[in-house]
């Protein structure tokens, strides 16, 4: 299934990141857009005025829904069926693909127009449709560009984020058979004209789903280009693919999500188009599909249910804010992650959906654990902690590096005993004389190679703090001041409050 893994070259995250780091076009393009998006998000959150409270509301809605997912999924399916929708459940990617292909065959489809859907990317559905002779056309501008380039999205909501205007003009010019100016209006104008024909020709419209409303069996799409409206109204048959966790209980919950998602994704107060679709075309409707299918996809999601460390992963609303905030994504872009989902959410979701298989072991190392993802997340998923859990699970599964394990054993042996630690420190203070020049270490060998390629390592001073402590302590006791009584009272009050279970300070993670 790792078709996407090969696209950026390199078998490991490290190798793929190496390629990205040497690609100045990519790095500039990714920096430019992620900066715009994350600043937009910060401003939109400030403008909102009550952001943290709404984040908590969003989190609570998601926690509640996922805790009762079986109930809400059944409610959704029952209501959607009552609306005339064909509801299918797919346990695996292969099943979801098969259901889609069967529908396409029955409809004798030649072309499918698609609005943006990460689930169909996860299933590699376009490839499967091609296999039975059905042309799948992406109609989101960014996705259309990526399809022309023969690539996969490098961002959850901005699939072509890694390309600049000139590269896009080149791709679209080849498609048009004439030279198009690298001007956003000209390029978008060309795609709009071209896609009009495709919408009219298509036999099937295929979409993802931002939120599925359990109380009415409706599905809701957020978009900015209007293409999802065309996809869901023009073709006779509609197929919606959704991850099983896309559910929310009610339309009033959607209000919270509609506040959180666009602001977090792009800094927009509202998405340009928000479509709620409740069943196929009725007699009184002017347009809409005659036949509608919703395929609810598991594909590893249910593995997180009941897992205290990973269940919250299902709370994700796919806004991409964690990608835009991530300093690692900023430098390496999305393809380096090697999976359908990139950035911090991808680094956790990809191995989690695949039962943490060894293939994805190194992805959890591509993070400095800075927590920017957690801070940006509109539903507060602790991705920075999940990355640590992934690293631990890899070791528990016996796939750790032997040298590293030995090193960590040594670390624990030294650091769990102050005497041993003090002895090792002394050895270091003496031994470093061989390598220190001008107060620093510049050698690029062994474990210092990577570090010293970018830095000078400081040398150890003659005496550590603990070696200086005795003298320092004597000096201080000698000239000690009396403590201000007010200060003393404050400290005593804090200790009292603490004993009474009050207070507590500073924990945001």
């Amino acid at each position, binding site marked *: 299934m790792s078709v996407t893994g090969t696209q950026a070259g390199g078998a490991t995250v*490290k190798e793929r*990141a190496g390629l990205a780091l040497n690609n100045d076009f990519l790095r500039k393009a990714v920096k430019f857009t992620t900066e715009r998006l994350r600043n937009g998000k910060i401003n939109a959150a400030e403008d909102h005025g009550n952001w943290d409270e709404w984040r908590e509301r969003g989190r609570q809605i998601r926690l509640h829904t996922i805790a009762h997912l079986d109930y809400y999924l059944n409610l959704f399916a029952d209501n959607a069926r009552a609306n005339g929708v064909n509801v299918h459940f797919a346990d695996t990617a292969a099943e979801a693909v098969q259901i889609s292909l069967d529908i396409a065959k029955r409809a004798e489809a030649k072309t499918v127009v698609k609005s943006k859907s990460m689930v169909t990317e996860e299933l590699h559905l376009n490839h499967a449709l091609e296999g039975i002779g059905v042309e799948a056309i992406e109609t989101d501008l960014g996705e259309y560009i990526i399809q022309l380039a023969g690539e996969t999205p490098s961002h959850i909501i901005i699939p072509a984020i890694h390309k600049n205007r000139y590269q896009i003009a080149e791709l679209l010019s080849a498609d048009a058979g004439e030279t198009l100016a690298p001007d956003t209006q000209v390029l978008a104008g060309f795609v709009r004209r071209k896609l009009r024909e495709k919408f009219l020709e298509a036999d099937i419209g295929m979409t993802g789903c931002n939120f599925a409303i359990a109380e009415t069996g409706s599905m809701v799409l957020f978009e900015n280009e209007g293409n999802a409206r065309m996809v869901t109204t023009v073709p006779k048959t509609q197929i919606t693919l959704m991850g099983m966790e896309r559910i929310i209980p009610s339309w009033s919950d959607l209000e919270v999500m509609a506040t959180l998602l666009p602001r977090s994704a792009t800094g927009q107060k509202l998405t340009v188009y928000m479509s709620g679709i409740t069943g196929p075309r009725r007699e009184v409707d002017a347009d809409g599909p005659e036949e509608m299918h919703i395929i609810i996809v598991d594909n590893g999601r249910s593995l997180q249910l009941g897992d205290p460390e990973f269940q919250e992963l299902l709370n994700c609303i796919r806004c991409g804010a964690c990608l835009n905030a991530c*300093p*690692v994504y900023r*430098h390496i872009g999305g393809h380096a992650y090697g999976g359908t989902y990139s950035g911090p959410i991808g680094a956790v979701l990809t191995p989690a959906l695949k039962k943490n298989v060894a293939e994805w072991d190194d992805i959890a*190392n*591509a993070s*400095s*654990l*800075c*927590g*920017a993802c957690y801070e940006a997340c509109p539903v507060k998923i602790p991705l920075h902690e999940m990355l*640590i859990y992934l*690293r*631990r699970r*890899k*070791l528990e599964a016996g796939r*750790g590096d032997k040298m590293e*394990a030995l090193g*960590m054993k040594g*670390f*624990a042996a030294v*650091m*769990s*005993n*102050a005497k041993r630690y003090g002895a090792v420190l002394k050895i*270091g203070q003496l031994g470093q004389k061989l390598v220190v020049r001008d107060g620093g270490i510049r050698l690029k060998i062994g474990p210092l*190679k990577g570090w010293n*390629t*970018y*830095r*000078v390592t400081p040398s*150890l*001073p003659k*005496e*550590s*703090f*603990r*070696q200086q*402590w005795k003298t*320092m302590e004597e000096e*201080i006791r000698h000239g*000690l*001041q*009396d*403590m*201000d009584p*007010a*200060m*003393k009272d*404050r*400290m005593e009050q804090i*200790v009292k409050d603490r004993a009474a279970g009050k*207070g*507590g*300070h*500073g*924990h*945001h*993670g």
Partner: protein
Amino acid sequence: MKVSLFITCLSDAIYPRVGEAMVRLLAKYGVTLQFPTVQTCCGQPAFNSGYWKEARETASTIIAAFEDADFVISPSGSCTFMIHHYPKLFEDDPVMLEKALKLQAKAYEFTQFLVQVLGVTDVGAHFPHKVTYHPSCHGSRLLGVKEEPLVLMEQVKGLEFVPLPFANDCCGFGGTFSVKMSDISGAMVNEKSEHVLETEAEVLVGLDMACLMNIAGNLRYRDKPVRVMHLAELLYEGVKGA
């Protein structure tokens, strides 16, 4: 009141001057720091890499070292936040879990202690230099130490504060990340240094010597004479010079 210093292994071994500045500055307020010499490292390198058994062995020394302290203060937001991970680390051991929770409740990062506990915002320092500040991720984002250092710097006479562009972006240290993913880490620290140089500040301050060692190491690699110091050092030097 027993206030104990949790020096952290990095400041102990490489930057004892930071511990000294803390000790001497707090002594001015009548705070006599205790230094339990049985302390070692918070265990973060092992914990973050997934070696929780090893992390528990190390964490146990910290828990034991500070069992009888009323306040534990440290020059690192990251190592202080590591203590907040201890309850998770010992969740299956009720005895240790209780001790871990007790330690967490009394663990403070240095500026947190100065501002929140002692109520000090003006240490009476004079430091006539152009200064920029890098807020380390764990201290600012996870521990929530955002205002304290800014408030303290605001009161320093002669200090010209220049905001650091993209200040909240990680410097790329990330512990073993800087070794395992050295090129990504290198790209991150390169960008951080460029932002520091853009400010034309003479001094870069922070609250975490690991991040500062990373940035200082990169600045030195470029032969840039920016002085890199912990805020405790800046304040103490400013008090001596006032």
